[in-house]
């Protein structure tokens, strides 16, 4: 179990080294889920649980997936403006 989590953690590091923050973020979330599942299944000794869960959670929170802007994204901004305007009308 520990080896599997360690391997997943290595994958996160590799994705970050390759500049793929979004893949790293996804892998980190998988790591967090696998960590919690391992804890819930009783595979992690109590004295390790807090450190492990906190580290996995911290890793997830530190990785920001910001997809590169694309030309078609402009439409989304317009949509946001439209939504904002609609909200203002509702006020």
């Amino acid at each position: 179990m520990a080896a599997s989590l360690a391997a997943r953690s290595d994958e996160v590091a590799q994705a970050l080294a390759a500049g793929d923050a979004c893949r790293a973020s996804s892998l980190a979330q998988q790591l967090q889920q696998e960590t919690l599942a391992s804890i819930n299944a009783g595979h992690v000794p109590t004295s390790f649980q807090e450190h492990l869960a906190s580290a996995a959670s911290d890793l997830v929170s530190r990785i920001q997936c910001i997809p590169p802007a694309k030309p078609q994204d402009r439409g989304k901004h317009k949509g946001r403006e439209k939504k904002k305007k609609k909200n203002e009308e509702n006020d």
Partner: protein
Amino acid sequence: MNETLAEGRYRIQRTLGYGGMAVVYLAHDEELRRLVAIKVLAEHLSDDSAFRERFLQESRLASRLSHPNVVQVYDAGEADCRPYIVMEYVEGETLGERGKLAYEDAVPLALQACAGLQHAHAAGLVHRDVKPANLLVREDDVLKIADFGIARAAELTRLTQHGTVLGTAAYLAPEQAKGEEVRAAADVYSLGAVLYEVLTGLPPYEFDSLPELIALQTSGAITPVRDLEPSVPEPVEAAVMHALARDPRFRPASASALGHELATATELPTEPLLATAISEPLRGRPHQSLPGGSAWLWIAAATALALVAVVLGLLSLGGDGKPAATQQPAPIEAPVRGATPADEARNLSAWLRRYSR
């Protein structure tokens, strides 16, 4: 503020309170037909887009918690570029509003806080801002911890440095006050500080600035609880002072370990309160106290107490089968955080391999 949020789903009824970070409203959920509390981020903080996103992200993490002693987060969203969180409405008062309490009243409340914190810590969430204002107490003495995730959001955007977000620092663990890495042990310290104040009427340290607090936490002594309030039994004092250890490694190993120490430190009839810490008969629970109730209630409470004792015992047992309260601190180092997320991932991997041998 609009009269409704989320396209009319939540109808604002009145303001419940103001804080440095947010305004809290009482609202009616028109869809599920129940009262809810809605925390709307203060306007000056809403301008910070990073904080706004973090606020919502942490709220979503907190929404995964489901425990009778944690205020449930139902929903989160944004209105007029101001993020809001929809939460369970807890009718009652904060622990701060209750003021100084006799240990017979304080310890059962602390046990519930331990149960709520333990649940969150097991899910990987650290509160980071446990203080009397975040501990809500209903009329039937059920305690619920509020604002999971919010302090985390504030810390990550460095807003706490201005002293406007966390409010009082009196309950901050030494490592937290110094800006070091914060783990679940910080919540254990904070709960110890809250309990110290509830029992004595004074915070562990009195200070005028954060540097002064750090200096006191580094070299100052905390006046023993019983010097200020002699009615507190020695074992209760010992449990509180154990939680207030400077070094996180010398505190109770977990929130449940602190609960275990407090529960064994007193012979109070805490069955009903402990029972609420692990089950959810809260809304249907009669407001009368158990001593006036019928025999089957006592049997149910005793069964629940036995179950809690087993759970707390299991959670606090170390590898050698002795309770954590009497153990030396486990020499397990936390994974090194790392300057970058990549470093942190590598450190975590190395840590896992080191301890799996």
